[in-house]
């Protein structure tokens, strides 16, 4: 039953991805100033939104781990698995943002990178979560999960800074799609629909791989527990 539901969800997600791609490439009209290269936006912005959401999941998992680590070890393990899954999948989406952005910038601005507030804070966010993953990969000992949880909480503090950066400071980055000034955002309804479909499809895809990553981490925790038991017996 569970496998069927996951299989159905995966099929719906793939159909959504196909539909989102069709909307972005064939249905949405070409933007008048940036022309075809503007279509990168349909993958770039949804990826940023999904990355922020998954860093928030990582934050919740990290807080949960710190809250339960003494009182309920099983719940703490679950929270820790969510924290790791959120951070890792968030880094994947943030990498997409940091690669597609410069590709667009090279055509729109004539340069790959500029040290403006939005770009720099996003790079800092990516570096914090990459260091979180490196800590989890290479550190050992009972304090590793606690240290990672603290780093995860501090990393998530950068998310609102990234989001607000092009409101707080003068930046070269385009104005926000939602919640910006009166003349910012998408005006064409076809473009808005293509954007909406891509947000939905990337969110569905993100949830699918987040679920897989969570499952893999829980399996790893079970193997580690089994190995610890084996070591005690030996």
């Amino acid at each position: 039953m569970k496998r069927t539901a996951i299989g159905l969800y995966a099929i719906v997600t793939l159909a959504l991805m196909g539909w989102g791609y069709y909307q972005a490439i064939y249905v949405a009209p070409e933007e008048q100033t940036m022309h075809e290269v503007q279509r990168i936006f349909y993958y770039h912005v949804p990826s940023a939104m999904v990355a922020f959401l998954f860093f928030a999941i990582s934050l919740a998992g990290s807080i949960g781990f710190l809250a339960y680590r003494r009182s309920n070890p099983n719940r703490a393990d679950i929270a820790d698995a969510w924290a790791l899954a959120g951070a890792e999948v968030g880094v994947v989406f943030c990498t997409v943002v940091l690669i597609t952005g410069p590709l667009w910038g090279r055509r729109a601005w004539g340069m790959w990178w500029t040290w403006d507030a939005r770009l720099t804070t996003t790079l800092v966010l990516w570096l914090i979560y990459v260091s979180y993953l490196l800590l989890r990969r290479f550190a050992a000992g009972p304090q590793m999960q606690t240290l990672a949880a603290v780093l995860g909480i501090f990393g998530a503090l950068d998310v609102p800074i990234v989001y607000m950066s092009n409101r707080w400071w003068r930046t070269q980055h385009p104005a926000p799609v939602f919640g910006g000034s009166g003349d910012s955002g998408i005006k064409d309804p076809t473009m808005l629909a293509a954007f909406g479909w891509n947000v939905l499809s990337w969110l569905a895809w993100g949830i699918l791989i987040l679920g897989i990553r969570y499952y893999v981490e829980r399996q790893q925790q079970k193997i580690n527990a089994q190995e610890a038991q084996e070591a005690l017996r030996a």
Partner: protein
Amino acid sequence: MKALIKIFAIIPIALFLIAAYSIFFAPHEPAFNAPDKAAVVARLNHLYTVAAYSIVWAIQLGYVAYLGLKNSAQKQEAVRASRSLR
């Protein structure tokens, strides 16, 4: 299942190659008064869009392949651990 993981691993490499080819073999930016400027700019825009979409899928499918490989390694590890417990 292993074949599926291998396909997931090969597709990202192909997509990375497409992206690299689109960027590194793209024509040079045309001069301001070049007669075919509009055509070259349109070609460049197309190549960069292809590169961006290819890289996105290369990263996403590459990550799924990594998870698949990790999961199959875990299954083998679990079998080994349960055998040694017996």
